[in-house]
């Protein structure tokens, strides 16, 4: 788990992670918001269903894939958190939605 450091900037951006509200400062990523929300893992792998959390936080490892505002397979570490953003963890392979988001 992660916590805010002392003297941190005000966390003014509210996003919704799996129904929980998480507050992050401007400039934080969606992946950071998932960690703030207190989730130990962000996805389950398609192959073996193992729990994973973000590894590199800089767009390389793809272990932070999540569904953001209805679009699956987003690299959540590269997406800036915006007010009202809805983030869902990705469980195993993505579902193919018959209707476009």
């Amino acid at each position: 788990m992660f916590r805010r450091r002392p003297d941190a900037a005000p966390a003014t951006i509210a996003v919704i992670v799996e129904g929980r509200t998480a507050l992050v400062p401007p400039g934080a990523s969606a992946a950071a918001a998932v960690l703030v929300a207190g989730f130990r893992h962000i996805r389950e792998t398609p192959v073996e269903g193992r729990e994973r959390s973000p590894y590199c936080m800089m767009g390389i490892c793809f272990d932070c894939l999540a569904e953001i505002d209805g679009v699956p397979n987003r690299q959540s570490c590269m997406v800036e958190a915006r007010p009202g953003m809805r983030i869902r963890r990705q469980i195993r392979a993505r579902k193919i939605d018959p209707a476009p988001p």
Partner: protein
Amino acid sequence: MTVELAIIGAGPAGMAAAVLAAELGVETALIDEQASPGGQIYRGIERSRPNSPLGPDDLAGRDLVAALRASRVEYRPSTTIWHIDPDGALYLESNGRSEVLTAHRILLATGAFERPVPIPGWTLPGVMAAGAAQILLKSADLVPEGRAVLAGQGPLLYLIAAQLARAGAPPIALLETTPWENHLAAARQLDKVWPGRRILAKGLGLIFAVRRAGVPVRRGVRGLRAIGQRSLERVAWDGGELAADHLFLHEGVIPNVQVSLALQLRHEWDESQLCWRPALDPWGQTSLPNIVIAGDGGGIAGAEAAALSGRLAALDAAARLGHIGEPERARRAVPIRAALDRERALRPFLDRLYRPAASVLVPAEDATIACRCEEVSVGRIRGAARLGAQGPNQLKAFTRCGMGPCQGRICGPIVSAVIADALGKPIAEIGTYRPRAPFKPITVGALADLDTGESDRGA
């Protein structure tokens, strides 16, 4: 849209190149995946405040960012490049929309990333690259809660330990994996480090800062492993273990060659930095005439050197595009090259001191995961090599290794080394993946929406 120079990546190399090129009259676009400039080293720099626990080096990046903001550069943040045609067409995606930008010259400034550290249990939640802890601190003001262990080696590991301590979250241990023999081998380089003494002093300062913060440092750690059921519970090594909530791994950084490999530029195996890097001339020119590389993407030398190599590439672009003459290019390059020599002087010493142990490239245990995406173990790669897989690209057909969403970015360095070891051949002979577009995933919608500028629509 057409520009004279398109630069990929707004880290120190890309920003410095863009600012100088625009100053010399080159019509320049700077494309970057992040929402604000700085790359990874200066991530979130525009928002960092005086009470930042990050230290003076990070604040130095502010000048570069301010110069970029004040320049005539067409800066395009939050934009992903998913394909480059060697003839100069760049395929971009931003906010779910695709477009094509054409450029007379392309400068890749895609930087570096942390060398993967494939130890047993490195896929467990709780285990992260050490740089991830720094990024969370820089961009979200977050520090690890509970017991954090830092393990590995290199200047960045000490820097992060010092920054976490300053941010009120000192790690409970720093496990240094530097093999004993490295110290002796590096000491033989010491006579050459005088021009790099300032950087050396900075490094020693970091080591003392970690000591002063009371972080216990254990040296010569071998056999590192992460243990836990569903997430990290303990960090173990040969002869000891610690209960831990976080493990941050670091064995140095390597060039991000994903795009340069996809472009089939000539690459070489760098035996001193143990990584693939593109073959470059002193101006950053690659094996394709219109494509140039600057910064750590062309070989690891650090942020200051990256900015300097970006400026050299900008001078060269300005000369080739007819904005300055050859004498001006040569004259302006002299002080830049002198500064670059100073920045690089310490490199052979650092490369030797922090040369990863053999087990970082070739994990000993068969069960260790190599490909995090497709969950392929080291043992399966060895097995495929014995069955006849001669290289990383053929290995894909045997195991799906490297075919997941990261497209081999993480497993690439491991796979080349494991196959080379299994077949008893040098890594240079085994080669590495040949990545293909799209460099990053795009939706079918963004692809279908692409405005190619050709009038075949509605025909």
